[in-house]
């Protein structure tokens, strides 16, 4: 089972686990990415996420297909939140399930690492005294 969602609503870990549920799978790895309240010593007030949605869905799909091929896992769920997020909010939930624990950990790490490299989603950190698009400049 593959499930991809990009939403401006709060993410739901239980819903992700239910979608990935599979009686043949004894191992479930999850990754939750949450908003930090500081970066490089500066307080973060909020993050603003933006997305090129049709391409982002396609790129996430490629990453999932690759993870399934490479690690032989069965189920991968990726839900990503966009819009305005505050410290503590969940920005991404990844659930990978299969019969083998090594494979689910490795696939989960591959999925989050690659999403951060290729999926057209951007975040701007807003501080008390300014704002900055993450990773935009050298």
């Amino acid at each position, binding site marked *: 089972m593959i499930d991809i969602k990009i939403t401006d609503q709060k993410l739901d870990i239980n819903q992700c686990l239910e979608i990935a549920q599979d009686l043949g799978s004894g191992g479930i790895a999850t990754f939750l990415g949450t908003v930090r309240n500081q970066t490089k010593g500066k307080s973060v007030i909020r993050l603003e996420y933006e997305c*090129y949605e049709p*391409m982002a869905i*396609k790129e996430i799909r490629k990453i999932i297909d690759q993870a399934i091929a490479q690690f032989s896992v069965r189920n991968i769920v990726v839900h*990503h939140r966009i819009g305005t997020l505050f410290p503590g909010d969940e920005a991404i939930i990844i659930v990978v399930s299969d019969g083998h624990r090594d494979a689910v950990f490795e696939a989960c790490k591959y999925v989050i690492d690659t999403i*951060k490299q290729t999926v057209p989603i*951007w975040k701007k950190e807003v501080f008390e005294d300014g704002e900055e*698009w993450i*990773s935009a400049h050298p």
Partner: protein
Amino acid sequence: MKLKILAFGIVKDIFGNSEIELQMPETANVKDLKNELEEKYEALKRLKSYFIAVNEEYAEDDLQLHPNNEIAIIPPVSGG
């Protein structure tokens, strides 16, 4: 030909808009588009990197462009 170009993230700030239109020669490819954009918007050159997406796929420099393409500028991504 007239090309419509979508902007996201910091590129939206650079263009001052989420979309621009650009007049290019009929033979233009992705590299020609990058050159034209960098001439018009020098701030693009100061980014860590950026890619051009054509029809929702990352495009190589030698890809030939067409007026009905969906073209987007992809600055460094930061999802997750």
